[in-house]
């Protein structure tokens, strides 16, 4: 790599450089116009890791809605039908607690991974990063590398610029619309959605959401990019609360690198009184948020490790040791022993694993049938012609399973009471709800009190399912 000389204003940084160029007489503006950042392309271990992340995550996002399971889409969040399908599992509204559990698990993982190695989410997995990566890749393919992009932006508007910019935005918009279409495809079966799109028969809400998410993708990944991370996302601001001195952060080794300065390759820098940093500014040029990591960890740093790759590359060419900019801990930089495995990590990990196991076991042990007993209320009880007392119940039975079941209803532990039901066996389709009317009848002489607790039991005909539900039997004063 030849060191390219660049004018300072070309790398587009944050306030530091901008401030120096402003005339001191002008009052200090609180609003600063954004300088577009042209991150330089970077190659290296972490770049490859990030690329893998992008491929895997995007693959999951775009491909998953197309998988089928039995006769339906494998992953489908059927909001009007109030059912979430995840492969073989069906979640009903009563299972909403698992969503809370999922969110708690997500929060715990956040604490765990952030305490471990800082902004792993931001740099490798966040949708903003992932989509911006893809959009930047498209930009690079259409407009060219960094120098070409800068030149094109400076050029006057002519046919060529229009064509190139048009192609880029066209590609961006196409991908954004596909993203919006895929997103809505998680909620409406994606094949039907595609059909409706092609026949221009999309419903108003689906149309709105496809365009909304498409527009959001285009705006965030194409235009806003690092501004989301710097201005909009709260994670940047509270990261400092989640780090401690043993968190792996990306840091410039000041002790090793300073004082910085250029030198001939053949010379030993120590003899010149120089540190390992040659002030090539590669780390600044590759930074997608436009900071200088040599100034220390800043809130804008999303932990993408591009500067690590860039500096390692330069160090390699000079024959120096890599790792001038590396993942390290505050303690390690201060020369103290590093404790990656420490009480905090162990506690987070323990809680995380425990909760994960609890959730998995709970889901596996779900009963696929629910029965609600609704007692007739207006007339508390009824007297038959023979003077017996009756209560009427409506039993709402939910078959939450994937398959049809036949159920038999019985009454538990009430020898004096008779259960009368229209159908001895109730057959309910998979995922369906049935209302069944039943009566309990007793001679008032046998009633001990005005209100008696009774228990209905529902068995499946094949014996695999058994649910019980309590209810009340009301009669006249004994």
């Amino acid at each position, binding site marked *: 790599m030849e060191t390219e000389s660049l004018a300072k204003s070309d790398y587009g940084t944050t306030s530091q450089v901008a401030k120096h160029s402003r005339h001191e007489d002008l009052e200090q503006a609180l609003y600063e116009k954004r300088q577009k950042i042209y991150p330089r392309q970077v190659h290296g271990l972490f770049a490859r890791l990030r690329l893998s992340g992008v491929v895997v995550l995007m693959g999951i996002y775009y491909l998953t809605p197309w998988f089928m399971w039995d006769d339906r889409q494998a992953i489908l969040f059927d909001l009007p039908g109030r059912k979430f399908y995840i492969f073989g599992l069906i979640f009903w509204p009563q299972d909403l607690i698992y969503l809370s559990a999922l969110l708690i698990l997500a929060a715990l993982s956040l604490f765990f991974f952030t305490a471990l190695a800082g902004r792993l989410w931001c740099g490798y997995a966040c949708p903003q990063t992932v989509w911006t990566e893809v959009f930047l890749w498209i930009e690079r393919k259409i407009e060219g590398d960094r120098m070409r992009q800068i030149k094109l932006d400076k050029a006057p508007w002519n046919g060529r610029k229009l064509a190139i910019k048009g192609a880029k935005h066209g590609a961006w918009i196409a991908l954004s619309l596909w993203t919006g279409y895929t997103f809505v495809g998680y909620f409406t079966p994606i094949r039907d959605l595609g059909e409706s799109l092609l026949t221009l028969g999309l419903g108003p809400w689906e149309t709105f959401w496809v365009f909304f998410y498409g527009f959001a993708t285009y705006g965030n990944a194409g235009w806003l990019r690092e501004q989301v991370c710097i201005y909009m996302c709260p994670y940047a601001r509270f990261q400092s609360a989640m780090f401690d001195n043993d968190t792996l952060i990306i840091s410039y080794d000041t002790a090793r690198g300073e004082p910085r300065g250029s030198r001939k390759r053949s010379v030993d820098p120590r003899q010149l009184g120089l540190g390992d940093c040659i002030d090539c500014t590669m780390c600044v040029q590759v930074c997608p948020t436009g900071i200088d990591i040599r100034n220390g960890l800043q809130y804008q740093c999303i932990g993408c490790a591009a500067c690590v790759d860039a500096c390692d590359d330069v160090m390699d060419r000079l024959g120096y040791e890599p790792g001038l900019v590396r993942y390290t801990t505050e303690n390690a930089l201060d020369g103290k022993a590093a404790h990656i495995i420490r009480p905090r990590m162990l506690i987070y990990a323990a809680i995380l694993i425990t909760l994960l196991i609890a959730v998995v076991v709970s889901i596996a042990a779900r009963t696929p049938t629910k029965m609600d007993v609704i007692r007739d209320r207006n*007339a508390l009880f009824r007297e038959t012609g023979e003077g017996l007392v009756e209560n009427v119940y409506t039993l709402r039975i939910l078959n939450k399973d994937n398959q049809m079941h036949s159920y038999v209803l019985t009454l538990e532990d009430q020898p004096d009471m008779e259960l009368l039901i229209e159908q001895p066996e109730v057959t309910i389709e998979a995922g369906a709800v049935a209302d069944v009317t039943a009566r309990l009848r007793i001679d008032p002489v046998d009633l001990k009190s005005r209100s008696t607790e009774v228990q209905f039991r529902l068995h499946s005909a094949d014996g695999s399912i058994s649910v019980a539900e309590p209810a009340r039997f009301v009669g006249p004063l004994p």
Partner: protein
Amino acid sequence: MADFVSGFWNWFIIIPTVIGIVALFPLIFSNRGTKVPGEEAEKMGHIWDGDLEEYNNPLPGWWLNMFIITLVFGIVYLVLYPGLGNFTGMLGWSSKGQYEAQVEKAEADYGPLYKKYAAVNIETLAKHPDALKTGERLYANYCSGCHGSDARGAKGFPNLRDQNWLYGGLPDQIKTSIVAGRNGVMPPWEAVIGADGARDVTEYVLSLSGREHDVEAATKGKVQFGSLCAACHGADGKGNQALGAPNLTDRIWQYGGSKESIIETISLGRNGQMPAHKDFLGEDRIHVLAAYVYSLSQEYEKD
């Protein structure tokens, strides 16, 4: 909006509202503040804590513009929609009108289905599974509160599944019961025959359905029955469907069949109310509902 007791309130609303909106324009424009770009804004003149002062900075552009947009929106809104006292607004919107529009739409959506059912007679309709499902839902909504979710009734509310009908169980009779309602009035006889008389008549009534009774009292009661009760219940006690007078020779008792209940019925009377559903549900829905209720008392296979 014509609900005000006097016209005063109408103006009480209009005048301050209009004055308020109109007055806001000069208020906001006169307080905009001006500032020459590049210079400091003028100071307000108060000094706190020795050197703390306040600049008269201009209202931010976005804020000012949004305020004006809000004022303009408010004016346009009050012209188009009700808000200024009794004025109904140029668009003539009202919540009642919105409701009526929704009812119209529901009629347009469901009307044809009910019209289709209305053309079929009740006996045939009572075998139609879809109509019965609709009827079941109508029943659950409108009838189950009194007649029970299994339609076997309760004290004072007839059992719709049996073959025993107060006013007749033919399809048209059932339909009339729902459309026009029924009122089963049993007069109170305590003043006429006294407590003893009520007891005697009760014994006789018990004998009519073959139950255990006091023979001596029943003989006395029979005389009373013939002069007072037979008019409605028939000399044989078999009842009269034209009047809704129950059959006293069966074991079905609307208000309870114990001796105490029957004495109470005779002494204090009864007043059974079946509400009229004609204006509430309309003939078409009642037609389907009647078919469902009719099907309950029939025992045949539904296709």
